[in-house]
């Protein structure tokens, strides 16, 4: 079996993972970063930071789960053939 034939689907998953990573960054920049709450004192600034962190974390987690499900799909597809 040729090298490209063996690795082409995983290369596809890798490129898809990279594109979705860039999209996740754009989502963080456009949705999470602009979040602001009224800041009567320093504690609320920390709270705002925490909200942004959790928001960015959720997007990162969705990306990781998407990546994992791609590999699961690949496994089912290849093993199904065999």
């Amino acid at each position: 079996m040729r090298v490209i034939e063996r690795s082409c689907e995983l290369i596809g998953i890798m490129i898809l993972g990279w594109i979705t990573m860039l999209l996740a960054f754009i989502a963080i920049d456009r949705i999470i970063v602009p979040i602001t709450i009224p800041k009567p004192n320093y504690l609320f600034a920390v709270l705002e930071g925490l909200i942004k962190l959790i928001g960015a974390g959720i997007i990162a987690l969705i990306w990781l789960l998407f990546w994992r499900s791609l590999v699961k799909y690949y496994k089912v597809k290849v093993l199904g053939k065999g």
Partner: protein
Amino acid sequence: MNRMATIILVLASSFITTFLVMPKLIKYLKSKGIVGIDVHKPDKPEIAEMGGIGIILGIIVGAIVSLIIDPKAAPKFIAYLATIILTAIIGFIDDLYTLKAKVKTALTILTFIPIVVMGLIFPRQIRLGRPVLPFIGRLRLTIAYWLLLPFAIAVPANAVNMMDTYNGVMSGSCVMISLSLLISSLILGRFYAALMSATLLGALIAYYWYNRYPARVFSGDVGSLSVGAAIGAISVIGGLEIVGVTALIPFIMNAFYSLSSLGGLLERHEIKERPVIVDENGVLRANLNSKAPSTLANLLLLKGPATELELVKSYLALSAVSSILGIVTAFLMGVRL
């Protein structure tokens, strides 16, 4: 001296050092009984272990040459070398006494300290925080950056360590990744990051000569952890975080799939089912047992059995693509939406 000539000189000095040191190091390691079994060969030969020391020596000489030519780079190179040496010490101890996986990972998390210390002492030379992202520019997520910084060295170090399983995979892939970092540094005009990448690239090309299939030497944790730490340090110090992450995608994929299928950090001997089965002819097959970790090797072999050399070429194909993506990312860092 011309910048391009400096990069070539630094690359050559680290290459020559590692290339000349390796034969003597291999002989010495074998004479001291520091050897590992090449489990993917039918005759299970004994191969010199801890050859990664040669890579570290090459990097150190390359860094010294850089500092002689341009002493202004001292803070960056001190942070770079301190990170690598600290990681090498952890790898050295692990090779000799086998640390628990969780202890090793926890210790590698501490290796970001030299970069932060040098960043605080020399804030103009080492600018931490606010990484540049493609289409976005400088990201204003400073709290997240500082929370993620401890993992900036630990993740690449352990991810590279986890993929150092077949002859020439770690060294060959990291040659391409360091070349990707070097080209990206030149695209973005980060001269010192290019110099650091040149020290790593030169040492790795020389090491690959000895580590390629069939391997005459294994890097050991001292080598693989240090190479991963070097990639992480170049990415952070050079402001190439996203390029580094992109180029390391196959390593991250391998680590992520293994960890998610195993459900946590385990040492090699603690894993009951191996991801790959080697038959008596040396042909590798994917272990289809549900308890076997889903490493990249396991995934690549799902399509059918392969020799070790075929598998290594598949790994290198993945790294070649991720390294090209790294360079594309560097180009996109100048694009704004």
